[in-house]
């Protein structure tokens, strides 16, 4: 029978890039495409031990339904940690545990977005947010963004032209895909503009804790200038991604709405997973885990930057993030990274082409490279191969220009 889907589904399509990248799970491929933390750095044995203790000591409770807002000790842990690291002032009941931060994005979209509403975002912006919110058919407004964050003047001008601006979405620390971190001044400007205009800020901070150089900067939610901010965070990058444990924090009236939406989406996040995490946190020092992960990532990022400096042709620019999982490479205009990807997969190297991170268009000559999932020697080998392909692509483009001329 012909199945008549909702019109909204017109925007929900399989991405060709994702299909291509399915091929990269072979171990022989050097993949800079994933967003994965390094598997070998997870404390798998200790997590298993925590799981065993939860089942033995609280088995019956861990397997039952639990409340939509989440396991209370975990909510308390998140509130305390956010307030300590990022200067926010969240109470325990202003935190809800979600099934991964993808769900927090989805619920935020369900809460705020109708057809045609405007979402203001960095340029480029996080792919997961684009896919989570596209189903609500918003109008994306990309705000020009430099190494310090969104350009505040441009933001004001774009807001002037918006009809129904519903939210400003930002990832101020080690942004995915660009690796950029917002300056303190830009954070304050954004907080001030958003508050004056009455537009909520969705501040997503999945990578902030993985800082390997410099000092933490305060969250936008913590600033005296800030109006309403919805804060998102996740355990996937520092604990274990397969468990789908993240959170959303916001003022109570909003959290109450988000709770009802989550109830309709999946009732609650896995009780067992939440209790395992809480058990693990009670008996381990998460900060020590993060230091260990961060020091491995520092080495990997260093290896990648050295290799890029060596292998990339003149005219290539790349970011030098002080934390997180990604860096961003802009190649000379003549290189089309989508075409380059096909080439690269032949040579068993993978990356994500830059245009995936622009809701409308842009980034044809850019690429996102993940440096966390591969050890340094594989990183060097992969960048070596990529550099060769980029040079060839440039030479070809040069020849074509000559022919046309």
């Amino acid at each position: 029978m012909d199945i008549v889907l909702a019109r909204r589904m017109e925007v929900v399509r399989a991405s060709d890039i994702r299909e291509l990248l399915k091929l990269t799970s072979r171990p022989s491929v050097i993949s800079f495409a994933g967003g994965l933390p390094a598997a070998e750095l997870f404390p798998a044995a200790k997590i298993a031990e925590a799981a065993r203790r939860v089942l033995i000591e609280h088995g019956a409770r861990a397997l039952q339904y639990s409340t939509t807002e989440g396991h209370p000790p975990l909510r308390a842990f998140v509130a305390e940690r956010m307030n300590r690291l990022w200067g926010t002032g969240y109470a325990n009941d202003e935190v809800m545990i979600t099934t991964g931060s993808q769900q927090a994005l989805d619920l935020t979209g369900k809460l705020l977005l109708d057809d045609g509403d405007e979402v203001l975002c960095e340029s480029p912006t996080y792919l997961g947010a684009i896919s989570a919110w596209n189903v609500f058919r918003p109008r994306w407004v990309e705000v020009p963004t430099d190494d310090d964050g969104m350009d505040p003047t441009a933001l004001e001008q774009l807001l002037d032209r918006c009809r129904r601006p519903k939210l400003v979405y930002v990832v101020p620390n080690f942004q995915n895909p660009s690796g950029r971190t917002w300056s303190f001044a830009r954070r304050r400007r954004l907080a001030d503009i958003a508050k004056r205009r009455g537009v909520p800020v969705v501040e997503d901070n999945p990578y902030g804790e993985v800082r390997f150089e410099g000092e933490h900067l305060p969250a936008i939610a913590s600033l005296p200038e800030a109006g309403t901010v919805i804060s998102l965070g996740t355990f996937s990058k520092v604990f274990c991604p397969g468990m789908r444990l993240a959170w959303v924090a916001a003022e109570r009236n909003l959290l109450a709405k988000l709770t009802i939406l989550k109830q309709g989406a999946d009732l609650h996040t896995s009780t067992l997973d939440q209790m395992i995490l809480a058990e693990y946190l009670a008996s381990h020092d998460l900060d020590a885990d993060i230091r260990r992960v961060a020091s491995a990532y520092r080495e990997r990022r260093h290896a990648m930057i050295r290799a890029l400096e060596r292998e990339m042709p003149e005219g290539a620019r790349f970011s030098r993030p002080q934390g997180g999982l990604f860096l961003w490479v802009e190649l000379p205009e003549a290189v089309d990274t989508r075409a380059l990807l096909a080439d690269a997969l032949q040579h068993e190297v993978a990356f994500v082409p830059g245009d995936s991170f622009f809701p409308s268009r842009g980034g044809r000559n850019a690429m996102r490279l993940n440096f966390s999932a591969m050890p340094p020697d594989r990183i060097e080998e992969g960048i070596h191969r990529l550099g060769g392909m980029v040079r060839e692509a440039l030479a070809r483009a040069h020849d074509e220009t000559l022919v046309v001329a």
Partner: protein
Amino acid sequence: MEILIDRSSPTPIYLQICQQVRGMIASGALPPGFRLPPERRLAAALGVTRGTVLAAYRELRADALVDARVGRGTSVLAQRFHAQPSPAGDVPWNQLFRAAAARPQDPLVRDLLELSERTDVVSFGIGLPAPELLPVSTLHHLLDEVMAEAGAAALLHSPTEGHTPLRETLAELMAARGIRCGPAEVLVVSGSQQGLDLAARAFIDPGDPVVVEEPSYFGGLQAFRAVQARLLPVPADEEGMRTDVLESLLRRQRPKLIYVLPTFQNPSGHVMGLARRRRLLELAASFQVPVLEDDPYSELRYEGEPLPSLKALDEAGVVLYLSTFSKTLFPGMRVGWLVAPRPVVRQFALIKQSSDLHSSTPGQFLVERFIRRGYWAPFVRASRSAYTARRDAMLEALAAQAPEGMTWRRPEGGFYVWGRLPNGVSMTRLLGAAASAGVTFLPGRPCFIDEPGGEFVRLNFSHPSEERIRDGVRRLAAAIASSTERPRAGTPAPIETRPIV
């Protein structure tokens, strides 16, 4: 007031009018006290019939957005949440919320979940499996096995469609339920609530009609309301959904989906008869409307002969089948699954990817191993025998304790006894009396769409022990007795026009 009508849109015109006026009220463009144009004038201006405008105004009245007075026309009401002129920085939330999210929804499930954790309260309120039955020690051994064999893979990301060995195992489990499918037709979901959410999002645009039984599972109703579906209730009797009513409805409307729980329905406990099942499938096939079959309870049959599921009878490929381990194995892990034609699985997986990437990996590894190691069938047998005893305990306690005039059904399976209170019981008073007596139940109201349903109660018997069940029924009976309103002298007794369900 400017209204644009899109005649090519499948959204009915009266809803288009209603949605736009609602938007203008929400944004403050139409302030409180603003007089909407008379129906006849707006109808002429838009080139629609007066009945269309009347229907739109009726919807707006039902949402308490406008008020109609004879002689004064229809005017905008002051909104309870209407943003007052606010100092800079205050966010006018209700203008920002989506139309669907701004509507108040029932926080009932959340409240009941909270109460079920208290030890001084006997909870008949929520459908939890018996804690004594949870296979804790088995799981703990399986966990050791999983970690030894799979290691970190059990903690990392897994495919959106589900852990492949689990999809294979589920396809085999389906064969035991008479359903032939391959692993590619199985999608693992984060509890069947997510399956409902995905179906609602895949099929429903605002205003699209969905057929549901009345009464129905309120989690399903909630998922459909969240996408602004128009719910078309079809009454159910002892044999399940009335297919004669469904047929006449299908002749008039083009619903996007038929949502039905044919076996041990939640809340009523009804089982749809075989003839009705076949008729429902015929109608669905000839009118080309997909059927969403929600089947959490069918393995928990305590007496009588099992009937084939709709999916097992489905030759036309119209059924999407949804089931879960939450009512049998363990709810806390949120593992459910959908069986559907491949294009549906592909589309649902795309939406799932943007809603939670994938379901918890360790939960999927554990469930898969639990089934593959042969623990499933004996576990279900043990659950059946424990629940039979609990159901009987509840039926006996009700027979002994229930106040005169209260009636209930004997369920052949599932989790609930569906009862009807004696005439004259005030639900508001009963909720208060039951809370102070330390017993909870689910009031029928949220399971209904058009009917008020205020005289029904759903009592869960799977979670409390037999002793607690007897104690709880005693408390409930006393609470009901103390909540009966004596008919006031001179006031005639209310006339009952509702059919018995």
